[in-house]
């Protein structure tokens, strides 16, 4: 098991390096000159421009700048925003908690609602409740997030006034965005949980358990769910990436400060350092969550470690 965990840890090292190279070169390839953007509308001589490039380090070749960038990132220095002139690390840190609370609250909704509905649908397969859950989940998966978000905002916040329209830091303002984001992802999880539980319920050892006279509730709760949860848990790891992408949309719809809205602004304003930091952080969150998921899966099902 320790060997597996070590191997799994080692596997993510090149991925993190590759992620950082990709993030760096992606932003390198963006069109537009940051220096021109920075001094838009100001009188600049060619010498001024050259000095600005030098102070920003933009006169160095790309590999050199990559190494400098990585070194600084390791020290927690993501550079300075081209637009706001503030340190990127400060900007990101100031909104990171808002995005994390949204993503975690949505994940909570996903897990509770998604798994509960999926398990209920599976053990009552072909009943009206199964049909209902699956129809709702299929429609939910097909709804564009920005659309369900806008409609929820219009009807629940603006018209019914159940939730605040403006996104303060209160718990109350977190509820609607988290539920909108979480419910859609719950629909995906419910579908997978159902098929995963159904698949396990067909296994021979379940028949054996039933034949031995084990109560059906116990068959489901003890024998089936433990094995059915592995694909579900893996999906939740993958779902992290979806939720982080979803926060971009949810934050934009609800005009909520966070990494997502910051990323959208950074793209519009060509603010390279901010964009680099956000994409890198999102990828690192995903990589670490999936590292944990894989290790927990191996602990739950030791067969995985021997593959």
């Amino acid at each position: 098991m320790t060997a597996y965990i070590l191997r799994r840890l080692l596997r993510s090292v090149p991925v993190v390096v590759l992620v950082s190279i990709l993030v760096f070169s992606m932003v390198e390839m963006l069109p537009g000159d940051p220096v021109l953007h920075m001094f838009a509308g100001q009188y600049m001589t060619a010498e001024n421009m050259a000095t600005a490039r030098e102070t920003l380090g933009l006169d160095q070749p790309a590999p050199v700048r990559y190494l400098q960038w990585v070194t600084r990132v390791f020290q927690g220095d993501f550079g300075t925003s081209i637009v706001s002139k503030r340190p990127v690390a400060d900007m990101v840190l100031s909104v990171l908690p808002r995005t994390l609370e949204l993503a975690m609250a949505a994940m909570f909704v996903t897990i509770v609602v998604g798994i509960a509905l999926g398990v209920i649908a599976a053990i009552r397969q072909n009943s009206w409740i199964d049909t209902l859950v699956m129809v709702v989940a299929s429609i939910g998966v097909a709804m564009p997030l920005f659309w369900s978000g806008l409609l929820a905002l219009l009807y629940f916040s603006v018209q019914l006034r159940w939730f605040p329209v403006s996104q303060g830091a209160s718990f109350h303002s977190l509820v609607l965005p988290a539920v909108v984001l979480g419910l859609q992802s719950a629909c995906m999880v419910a579908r997978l949980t159902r098929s995963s539980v159904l698949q396990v319920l067909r296994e021979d050892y379940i028949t054996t358990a039933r034949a031995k006279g084990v109560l059906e509730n116990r068959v489901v709760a003890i024998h089936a769910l433990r094995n059915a949860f592995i694909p579900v848990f893996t999906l939740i790891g993958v779902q992290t990436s979806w939720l982080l992408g979803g926060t971009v949309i949810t934050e934009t719809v609800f005009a909520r400060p966070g990494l997502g809205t910051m990323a959208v602004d950074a793209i519009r304003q060509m603010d390279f350092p901010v964009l680099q930091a956000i994409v890198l952080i999102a990828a690192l969150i995903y990589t670490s969550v999936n590292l944990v998921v894989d290790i927990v899966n191996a602990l739950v099902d030791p067969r995985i470690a021997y593959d």
Partner: protein
Amino acid sequence: MTEEISQAPPAAPLVPAPERRRTTEFDIVRRNFLRNKGAIIGLVIISFLVFVAVFADVLAPYDPIAQTRAFLSPPNGTHWFGTDVLGRDMLSRVIHGTRISMAVGIGAVLIALVIGMAVGLLGGYFGGRIDAAVVMLIDTFMSFPGLLLAMVIAAMFGTSLPVVMLAVGLGEFTLFARLVRSAVYAERARDYVLASRSIGAGSFFIMARHVVPNIMPSIIVLVTLSIGNAILSAAALGFLGLGAQPPIPEWGNLVNVGRDYIQMAPWLIWFPGIAIMLTVLGANLLGDGLRDALDPKLRR
């Protein structure tokens, strides 16, 4: 688990047909598909939308970009879906949007398929170091949230339809690469590959002639299921203003523009959203139906 195919009820017709034909694999798949209510609904929805997309010019009652003085009029007899702030007929705009969303969805999935197949075949067939590199590449791309990746690509190459396809396709190719890689990995150990190699077939020939056809059913299913996702991603880009630009009536973009008038004219949001939902639902139902019909493990 291997005997399940034989459990399928015999397909012999009640009245003996004049010409006895063997039940082919295709017959089984078709029967399984037609027995599935969801699959039929999906097929109907997608056929309808393809029809709308192809005949958009004929079906749309008005020019989708012609402005009139009927600003923001609610749905009524002349404008079924109402009009937008420039007095453009929303029904015509949504109808023309079908063409764009369908094209972008299919285009993006084809890009994802081509890249994913190339990468997956490379890794799965050759194994070893090449495979390790492929897995690393897949892991790397998977760690970016698809939408964020698409946003950066759209920002890099501008906001035209081909760029949207590329941006969405690059976010989805990992699914195909993973599927193809693991399928090829399993297939290449089979006897038929060895037999083929022993009579002198080259790697490329074996892959194209034997391995790819064998994993085709899984690919068809994934293509169908990915189209829905691709349409959702493209619409999200449009909503963020990073997709197709106005006056192109792209659905996500329509919602983005309608957002400013959401209280006055909620129909500007409702109809494009329903169109997206219906398309994605149709593609997903069709994909689920194909998967259930093509997967022998689920036949019982």
